[in-house]
């Protein structure tokens, strides 16, 4: 079989014909210049307030990847306070660990942590499955930050494979939980920033207000980052084992250092509004809908659907993918919460689907479209209008 490379794939498509170029040009000719926005007085006040805050916290101002970059939102414009001060306990010989920012909308706490090599001379580190890019040059180019890191890795004598490891904390009810690390960005081959999502809800609860009385003043987060020696000559087989059994990289790579840290941060309570969806279908395919709720916080909308398998369900498992649109029919980008993209009828704990839409452009969810995976011919997508009614 021929190898799949990007050039060959691009050659599978013809160049755009002239008529297409004319269409693009015509579309561009018809876009109207947009007037500069006129700031309302409220915005002026906010800017003035921000200016005061910035002066007051000049020492805390930072450069580099921020929560705003990760979430594509301006936390300050949403009035969500961002914390820059933390108590960190722990140290490592090879790695600096620095908590950059934390902010909470009352449901999740978002935490950015910087990991950087103490001795950067001739050394580099690489994260997760990015090693694939080193071993598979036929892969298309990764994003810019990964590309820059990979180039530095190629020129480094010592390369570490970095594993953030599980971050644990206790939620509002004291239950030990594991954070999701949603995103990681390289600032260089020696410094990377990881975004963690700490789900502050109790396991099975979506009742923010009733739980707020038990809201913790301080959240203690435990993390155990590790560095492994990565030989650039590692064989593909080792790499595949490493990535398929990521919980035990020590079986395949030499551990250079494993550390333990605890971080104390203070999540702040934020107002929230819970809605029920006025008209919702009783069934999605062979699944009974038990509840459908939307919760709005200053940062995001959280959609949750709970299902139950019906007696006549013939499928061992379901995978369903929601799409959310605003009132103009434009798609809203959203994230899935843990394991929620898949409904698995063999796992009762997974009988829900949760998605979060970050409010980065003032558009509210209006329509939900759920599409089953693999069996679309038999089960066409279901579209539901999200008429939100404040819950009692």
């Amino acid at each position, binding site marked *: 079989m021929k190898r*799949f490379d990007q050039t060959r794939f691009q050659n*599978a498509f013809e160049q*755009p014909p002239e008529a297409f170029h004319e269409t693009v040009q015509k579309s561009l000719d018809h876009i109207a210049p947009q007037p500069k926005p006129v700031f309302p007085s409220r915005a002026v006040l906010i800017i003035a307030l921000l200016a005061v805050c910035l002066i007051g916290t000049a020492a805390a101002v930072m450069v580099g990847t921020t929560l705003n970059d990760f979430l594509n939102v301006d936390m300050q414009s949403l009035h969500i306070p961002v914390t820059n001060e933390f108590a960190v306990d722990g140290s490592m010989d090879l790695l600096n660990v620095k908590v950059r920012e934390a902010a909470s909308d009352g449901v999740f706490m978002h935490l950015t942590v910087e990991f950087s090599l103490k001795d950067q001379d001739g050394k580099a580190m690489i994260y997760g499955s990015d090693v694939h890019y080193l071993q598979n040059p036929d892969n*298309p180019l*990764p994003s810019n930050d990964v590309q820059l890191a990979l180039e530095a890795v190629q020129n480094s004598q010592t390369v570490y494979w970095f594993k953030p490891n599980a971050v644990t904390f206790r939620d509002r009810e004291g239950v030990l939980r594991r954070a999701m690390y949603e995103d990681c960005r390289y600032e260089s081959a020696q410094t990377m920033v990881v975004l963690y999502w700490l789900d502050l809800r109790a396991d099975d609860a979506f009742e923010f207000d009733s739980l707020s009385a038990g809201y913790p003043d301080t959240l203690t987060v435990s993390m155990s980052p590790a560095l492994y020696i990565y030989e650039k000559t590692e064989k593909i087989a080792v790499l595949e084992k490493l990535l398929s059994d990521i919980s035990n990289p020590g079986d395949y790579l030499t551990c250079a250092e494993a550390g333990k840290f605890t971080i104390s941060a203070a999540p702040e309570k934020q107002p929230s509004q819970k809605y029920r969806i006025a008209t919702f279908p009783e069934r999605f395919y062979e699944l009974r809908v038990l509840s459908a709720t939307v919760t709005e916080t200053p940062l995001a909308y959280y959609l949750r659907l709970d299902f139950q398998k019906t007696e006549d369900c013939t499928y061992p498992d379901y995978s369903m993918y929601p799409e959310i649109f605003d009132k103009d029919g*434009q798609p809203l980008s959203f994230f899935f919460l843990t394991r929620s*993209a898949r409904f698995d009828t063999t796992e009762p704990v997974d009988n829900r689907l949760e998605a979060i839409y970050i409010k980065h452009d003032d558009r509210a969810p209006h329509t939900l479209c759920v599409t089953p995976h693999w069996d679309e011919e038999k089960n066409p997508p279901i579209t539901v209008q999200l008429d939100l009614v404040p819950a009692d």
Partner: protein
Amino acid sequence: MTQEAFTRNVLEQEAMLYRIASTLLSRFPDRQDAVQSAISLAWQHHTALRDESRFRPWLARILVRECRRMQKSLGPMVLTDTVPESNPLPQRDEQLHDAIALLPDKLRITVVLYYVEGMSHQEISRALSIPKGTVKSRLNAGRALLGRILNEEVSE
């Protein structure tokens, strides 16, 4: 982003726009309509894009959605090229083109965004509003299917 910058960015992505539209829509006029609409929407909402370096996946996402909206109104896609006759197709890898065309819709767009447009898993995840894990599984499935199709072709 200024209007000049927007225009420049769109023109730089013209080939990508064409490939995405070709992947999802079979009729040339439909591709034109979808791209026209996507450009208009992108300009309308361009202030929402805070990081200009993400323009490419952002524009791709808008176009994918526009194509899907059109697909819904047009019905099932019939995989035939209907580029105007006055614009004969330049040479292309017909074998791979046909193999890609045989992929199911969802695998096809994922494979094209990854292998042709060089987008990362994260960018595709955002463009298609699906989890990263789904991107990977669709790529695996697409790769496997393409491999099978091309092996058969090669063996002939």
